[in-house]
């Protein structure tokens, strides 16, 4: 009998709840029982409340068990779980679990399915088809295909990817660059991390395609240092990719230094150049003068990871998902006080309520939901009464909110929104790069004024001051850090005035 393939995720989140111990015990127990297994450390399927989620490959497909603790392993073997046997922890066929079955996975199609560092696995599951397709085309045709797909930047700004690539392609320069922004600093987001740990070649393939499209043979992946597992996986993936000589595109990994601002593209470029990560004034935009002053495409991890699928299956296939001007799919991340936290890739147009209730299952604590912060620390707080909003760049913007990087953080009724508003300023004060005054000084003053509001000191005039300060930060900041810090502050004040002592 051939070896049974057993999958135990190597994803950092899975490790944080004991996946490594489970893997070790499974290996030990299998050896003791004389069962031949092929233990694969896959990425996460994104059903994080079920981690460690162990899967077994059977003739009837993959069967899932979870959450598995090291102590459960012996009883799992007693139940012949390696043959798909029944057990209280059995979740049935993985793909039939509603959380997964109801998703539309394009970008994350392979994540959790394959061995992240097996190029053969990657290719078997559709990898490299997009690159081969792109290399057989002229750069202009690749750019046209990406433009037609309607793909927009998944880092938060939502800028059309095809237009960015076209600008870079049109520049005359002896050297151009493709930079992947993997400085995923927004609280409530972990999709970049999951992808880099679970399907790293998808990112590299996307970069190689971008390189061909704009005429760049060199790329950098800038990963935050808070993600050591992702850094290690990407480093190995890059070595394997280079050794396979799939194209002339070369990639270098750069690890950040723990500065949130380096997720802003121009700060990131300065950081890759070995400098303080300070924001650059625009223009010039990176597509004309970016890294080392050369034309540079900077894209988020998820933007680049979507490119392979678009090239392989065609722009129309991707464009057919979504609504309005938001085409394709978005990786939403359910976080905070959520019962079923994890990654949900759905076409644009899904409502916040579907994500929170159907997928997330409400709060983990069981307390009533009060507020949701969508789009990271710079995103708006949305009250529980307004969950029927569709997830779409324009719809959210029209409601004074934003999609950001797709993070959705649930807060229960114990949250104090005045404190959350104060925290938005505090975070900005800690993480501001210091280059522009509205952000550097405004954040500190905002925190101080919010302290007075919370202490009940001269509330109305201090709140008027907060609103005034927010206007200056919005209009006068050099980048989105200072420019969007007012969004959580003002949305909290607008939707939850009672927490600020207003009726």
């Amino acid at each position, binding site marked *: 009998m051939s070896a049974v393939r057993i999958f135990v995720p190597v994803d*950092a*989140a899975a*490790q*944080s*709840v004991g996946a490594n111990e489970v893997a070790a015990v499974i290996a030990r127990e299998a050896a003791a029982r004389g069962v031949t297994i092929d233990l694969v450390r896959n990425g996460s399927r994104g059903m*994080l*409340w079920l*981690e460690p989620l162990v899967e077994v490959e059977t003739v009837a497909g993959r069967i899932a068990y979870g959450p598995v603790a090291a102590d459960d392993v012996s009883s799992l073997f007693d139940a012949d779980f390696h043959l798909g046997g029944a057990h209280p922890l059995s979740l049935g066929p993985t793909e039939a679990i509603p959380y997964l079955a109801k998703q539309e996975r394009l970008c994350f199609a392979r994540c959790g399915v394959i061995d992240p560092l097996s190029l053969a696995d990657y290719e078997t599951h559709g990898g490299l088809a997009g690159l081969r397709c792109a290399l057989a085309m002229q750069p202009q045709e690749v750019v046209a295909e990406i433009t037609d797909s309607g793909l927009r930047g998944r880092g938060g700004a939502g800028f059309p990817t095809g237009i960015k690539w076209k600008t870079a392609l049109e520049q005359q320069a002896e050297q151009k660059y493709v930079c992947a922004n993997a400085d*995923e*600093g*927004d*609280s*409530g*987001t*972990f999709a970049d*991390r999951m992808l880099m740990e679970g399907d790293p070649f998808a990112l590299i393939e996307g970069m190689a395609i971008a390189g061909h499209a704009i005429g760049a043979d060199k790329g950098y992946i800038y990963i935050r*240092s*808070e*993600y*050591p*597992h992702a850094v290690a996986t990407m480093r190995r993936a890059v070595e394997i990719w280079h050794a396979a000589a799939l194209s002339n595109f070369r990639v270098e990994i*750069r*690890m*950040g*230094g*723990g*500065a*949130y601002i380096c997720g802003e593209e121009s700060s990131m470029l300065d*950081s*890759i*150049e*070995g*400098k*303080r*990560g*300070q924001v650059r004034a625009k223009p010039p935009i990176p597509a004309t003068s970016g890294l*080392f002053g050369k034309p540079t495409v900077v894209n988020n991890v998820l933007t680049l990871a979507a490119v392979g699928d678009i090239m392989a299956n065609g722009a129309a296939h991707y464009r057919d998902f979504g609504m309005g001007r938001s085409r394709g799919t978005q990786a939403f*991340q*359910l*976080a*905070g*006080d*959520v019962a079923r*936290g*994890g990654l949900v890739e759905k076409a644009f147009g899904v409502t916040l309520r579907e994500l929170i209730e159907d997928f997330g299952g409400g709060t*983990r*604590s069981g307390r009533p939901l009060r507020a949701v*912060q969508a789009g990271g*620390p710079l995103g708006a707080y949305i009250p529980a009464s307004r969950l029927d909003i569709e997830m779409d760049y324009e719809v959210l913007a029209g409601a004074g909110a934003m999609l950001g990087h797709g*993070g959705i*953080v*649930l*807060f*229960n009724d114990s*949250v104090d929104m005045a404190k*959350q508003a104060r*925290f938005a300023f505090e*975070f900005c004060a*800690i*993480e501001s790069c210091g280059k522009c005054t509205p952000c550097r000084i405004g954040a500190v003053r905002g925190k101080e004024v919010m302290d007075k509001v919370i202490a009940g000191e001269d509330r109305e005039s201090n709140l008027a001051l907060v609103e005034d300060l927010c206007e200056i930060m919005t209009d006068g900041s050099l980048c989105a850090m200072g420019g969007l810090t007012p969004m959580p502050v003002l949305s909290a004040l607008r939707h939850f005035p009672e927490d600020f002592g207003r009726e």
Partner: protein
Amino acid sequence: MSDIAALPDLLERCREICAQHGNRPDALIEILHAVQAERGFLADDALKGIAHALNISRAEIYGVVTFYHDFRREPPPAHIVKLCRAEACQAVGSEELARHAEARLLGHPSVALEAVYCLGNCALGPAAMVDGELKARLTPAAFDALVETLEAKA
């Protein structure tokens, strides 16, 4: 740690690490990470050695070192607990946990508490990074158990 850092070969070692990075000034952050990973912190001599190898001023390196939260100018404690203080963890009680942790580790000889803003474990908070290992769903009791494990190691 301070003994190691004071070893006379620090300057030489910095030159070697810089050479491994092609003495490229743009690799400065990678170089600083490499030196700190080996020595625990960035002593004055490390800055001097790197400045010399990359042919940039010590002031420039100082500017970079002080900009990024990751870099240390002093010897590190034996163990570091980085507790996530960002919104997704706040939503599941990280501020209460932080108050507990601060009280528990006040004046602790070998375990230091630091704040971090997001570890990417936002569905399983409160999260922490303990000597490089990611932790999930921390409670005050789980935190105390963690500290005891670290104390036993020290």
